[in-house]
Each structure stands twice: as structure tokens, then as C-alpha cells.
């Protein structure tokens, strides 16, 4: 009898906290999104127009959010995979130092890191001169462009990509790679037929951990972008905290969550249930 009650006692406080301050607030977010009226006298009236208005007014910000987040996720994957591979297979005694370097950015405040990029990408900086020389910075400008926002997103969420990929590569049985080579597969073939599929759980986890926070972010667009680079997070933040248009902001928040949920489900379906199962087993 005691054993049957024990888990509920252990689980109780945490589950209650998450239910009360995560699940219940989502209900209130939904309720607020169906309010109508002006600030100070909002009323619950099943005002579904908030949703159609939100989508019509801010469709470009939605598209931009998912586009920027998608590109940032892609770039993060391209940067993170070689790094995770190096740490897992090539680093030797440097492994811990490199792992430390990956998490080091977390030890400086997110906002300050982003502001540091504002310095690095400002018009006078040597980085921009080099990019300009390479023809990558039209008119010698990087700051206040889409490129700067995507670069900032890529940088800020890169560790979330590196760590899961590293974890799945590290668990990988090196003998499988050697077997591929013994069977006369070229290095490229071995990589695409053996290493990459076996690290798929890490890639799936990493892309989700990068894409989800990136699509809701507003810090990078605020500091590195211009008025033309505003993402949906910027709109929600401004409607809530500056204009006090709570119903519209709540509707946008709800749509954002729903869209992300749909994208994630489609992605997991597409990426295959194997990858997901692998992730479940790892977690």
C-alpha cells in the first residue's frame, strides 16, 4: 500500500507547480485571447476575430520568424556537426576543454552576448570589413539586416545543437564505422550510410532545441535587426508590455504555440519514429 502512494507524494509538489503555473496559465492565455474591449475593460466575449486579425496583420512577422529560425537551425546544424564530431572522435585529451568551450557562452548573460555581436557587427568593425571584402556585406553594412539577426540566432542557440549531437556520437559504437571502412566504403559513404543515421536522434533533438526557442525569440531581432526584421516575438512583447493590447497578444501567442506544435509533429513524423524512439530512450 505504502509503495503505491509513495510516487504520488514524490511527484506531488513538482507536478502541482507545473500544472498550476504552466498548464493553467495556458488556459488563461486562451481565455484572454477571446476577450474584446479596450484596455481597462476587457471582457470575455468569444471574440474569435482576435485570431483572424492577428493572422492578417502580422502574417509577415510569422513567416519571418519561421524563416529566420529555420535558417538559423540549418546553419547551426552545419556548424555544430563538425564540432561535435571533432569533440567525440578527434579531440583526445582536449575533449573536456572543447566541451567547456561549447558551454562557456552560457556563463555570460544572453543579453550581453547579443550586445557583443552588436559590437562585432558594427560598421567600423574589422569583421565587417572582411565580410565587405568578400562581398558578403552589401554597402559595408551587416547590423540591422536579416543576416545579422540570423547570425545572432545561430550563435545563441548553437550549444543546444552541439550537445545532443555530441551525446549521440559519443554513444556510437566506433566498430560500426570501422566495419564500414573494412567493407571498402569510402569515407563519405561511411559517413552518410553509418555515422549520420546513427547520430539522427541527436540531430533531431538538436534541431528541435534550436528551432523552438529561435522562432519565439525577440532579443536578436531587437538588438541586431531593424524595423524590417521584427519577428513574432517582438510583436507579442510590444503588444503585451507597451501597448497593453492583451487579447491580440494572447491570440498571437496561442497561434505561435499551435504552429510550432504542428511543425514539430510534422517534423518528427518526417524524421522517422526511430529517431524519436532513440531520443526517448536517451531521455
Amino acid at each position: 500500500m505504502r509503495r503505491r502512494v509513495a510516487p504520488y507524494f514524490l511527484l506531488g509538489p513538482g507536478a502541482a507547480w507545473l500544472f498550476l503555473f504552466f498548464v493553467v496559465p495556458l488556459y488563461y492565455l486562451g481565455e484572454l485571447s477571446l476577450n474584446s474591449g479596450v484596455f481597462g475593460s476587457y471582457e470575455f466575449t468569444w471574440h474569435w476575430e482576435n485570431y483572424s486579425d492577428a493572422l492578417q496583420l502580422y502574417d509577415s512577422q510569422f513567416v519571418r520568424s519561421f524563416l529566420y529560425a529555420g535558417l538559423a537551425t540549418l546553419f547551426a546544424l552545419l556548424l555544430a556537426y563538425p564540432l561535435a564530431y571533432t569533440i567525440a572522435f578527434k579531440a583526445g585529451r582536449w575533449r573536456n576543454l572543447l566541451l567547456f568551450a561549447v558551454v562557456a557562452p552560457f556563463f555570460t548573460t544572453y543579453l550581453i552576448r547579443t550586445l557583443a555581436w552588436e559590437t562585432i557587427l558594427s560598421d567600423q568593425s574589422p569583421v565587417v570589413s572582411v565580410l565587405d571584402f568578400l562581398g558578403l556585406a552589401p554597402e559595408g553594412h551587416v547590423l540591422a539586416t536579416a543576416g545579422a539577426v540570423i547570425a545572432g540566432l545561430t550563435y545563441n542557440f548553437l550549444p543546444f545543437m552541439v550537445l545532443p549531437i555530441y551525446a549521440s556520437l559519443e554513444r556510437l559504437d566506433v566498430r560500426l564505422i570501422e566495419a564500414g571502412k573494412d567493407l571498402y566504403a569510402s569515407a563519405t559513404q561511411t559517413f552518410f550510410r553509418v555515422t549520420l543515421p546513427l547520430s539522427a536522434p541527436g540531430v533531431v533533438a538538436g534541431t528541435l532545441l534550436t528551432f523552438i526557442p529561435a522562432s519565439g525569440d525577440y532579443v536578436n531581432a531587437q538588438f541586431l535587426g531593424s524595423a524590417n526584421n521584427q519577428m513574432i516575438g517582438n510583436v507579442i512583447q510590444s503588444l503585451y508590455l507597451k501597448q497593453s493590447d492583451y487579447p491580440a497578444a494572447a491570440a498571437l501567442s496561442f497561434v505561435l504555440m499551435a504552429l510550432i506544435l504542428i511543425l514539430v509533429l510534422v517534423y518528427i513524423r518526417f524524421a522517422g519514429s526511430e529517431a524519436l524512439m532513440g531520443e526517448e530512450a536517451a531521455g
Partner: protein
Amino acid sequence: MSGGGSNVWRWLREHAVSIVGVLVVLYMLIPIVVIFAFSFNDPAGRYNFTWVGFTFSHWSNAFGIPELNEALVTSLKLAVLATVISTVVGTLMALALVRHEFFGRRAANFLIVIPMATPEVVMGSALLSFFLLIGTFSLGFQTLLIAHVMFCISFVVVVVRSRLIGFDRNLEEAAKDLGASGFETFRLVTLPLIMPGIFGAAMLAFALSIDDFVISNFNSGTTVTFPLYIFGAAQRGIPVEVNVIAMILFFFTVATMGFATWQQRRAEKMASVRPDQEAGVGMPAGTPAAT
């Protein structure tokens, strides 16, 4: 000459992946170097964006801005409280999930995963809607604490759970065979063995809390934390002291991590003596078996 060139080319090709890897590491560290360098800058105006000249004055004046100090103290208090609460509550949840089969386990797992898969802006705005509509909480330190504990719990559970999964339950059986009560077994065997996991989880919770901007931005009322101070100051020019404090926090965290790793290695070395000595196996892990 062409032979030398092709050697270089071969070396580059063989080490291409590592070279890219090292370049990515450098890319990750650039902003930290910039933050450090600009903490010695002597900006001409209010904006610390272009290099003017070298000075130590901001390091010697690190704690000379009252509002910044206040924000820092608020952040530290908030982080300590959120860490303690979320670590205790999250560890208990992890124990329930790993050690027990019970009705509602899948639902509990789902409840833990879903906050990690929700963008912060949604969590922040949902909590603000909740606080606004029910009206029992006034926005400020207490709503910040509620929010921080909420988003830390999931991460604590995941970290502690991974430690519990690799746990050798024979050690607990042995303690019970030697007459330890259930609570004694937990305190003297289980807890010390999962301590590194709990400590790691606590550090993660602390880092998440002290760094949180988005959710705090929504639920702070007029309370100012360190990230909120930076956000507010960004419009009118951020004082160089912010860089100094950011670097102090950085070095402090690195030192703590270094110390923790060193302690853990020492503990593992001590523990590794045990399997050789048959008699030591059942001893509580808190007491070194070698003595």
C-alpha cells in the same frame, strides 16, 4: 615546391573536420573575448560599442552603480531561491519517475517535457495572462520566483533522472541487509551517490534563472533583475561596469565548475578503491571504504 604544396593540401584534407571544429569553437568564444576586452574600454560617449582606450577604472568601480548592484542582488536572491526549490522538487519527481511504476506516469513525463518544448515568449505571456486575470499575485519578486521555479523544474528532472538511471540498486539492498532503515538508506547511500547529478542540476537551474530575460520581462512588474537592467539600459547606453560584472560572473561560474569537477574526480578515485575490498561494498558511501 609543388610537392610541398600538395603535402599541405593533404594535411588540410585529412584534418578538414577538426579544422572546421576548432574554427567553430573560436566563433563561440569570440563574443566572450569581446565582452572581456570591452570591460577595459574607455568609451567617449554613453555607448560602449567602439574601442577608444584602455582603462582599469571600470574594474575598480565594478560595484559603483547603485541600480546595477540592486539588480544584481535581486538576481542572485531569485536564482538561489529558485535553485533550491526547483532542485528539491525536481529531484523528488525524478525519484518517482525512475523508481516507481504508477498510473499517470506518461502524463507526468509529458508535463515535464512540454515546458522545454514551449517558446519562452509563450510561457511568459501565458503566466502574465494568468497573473492579470486571477489578480491574487502582484507582479514582482514573487511572480518572478514562481516563473523561475516553473521553467527550472523540467531541467532538474532530466539531469537527475539521467544520474538515477545508471544507479546500482544493489548498494541500497546491501544497506538494508545491514539493518539500515528506508530513510537511513536514502540519506547515507542513495543521496551521496546521486549528489553529483543533483549538484549539476542545481548549477543548471542557477544558470537558467540568473540568465533569464524573456519570461522575467513579462512577469517582473517593477522589479529589476540583472538581465532586465541591461535591457533597460540598452536604450540609453550600457555602462561598462555591466561588462565587468558579466566577466566576474563568468569567472566565478568557471571556478565553481572547476572545483566541482575536481571534487567529483577525487570522490570517484576514493570510490574506485572500494570494489577491491569485499568488506567495503555494503558500507554507506558517505564514509570512505579505504579507512
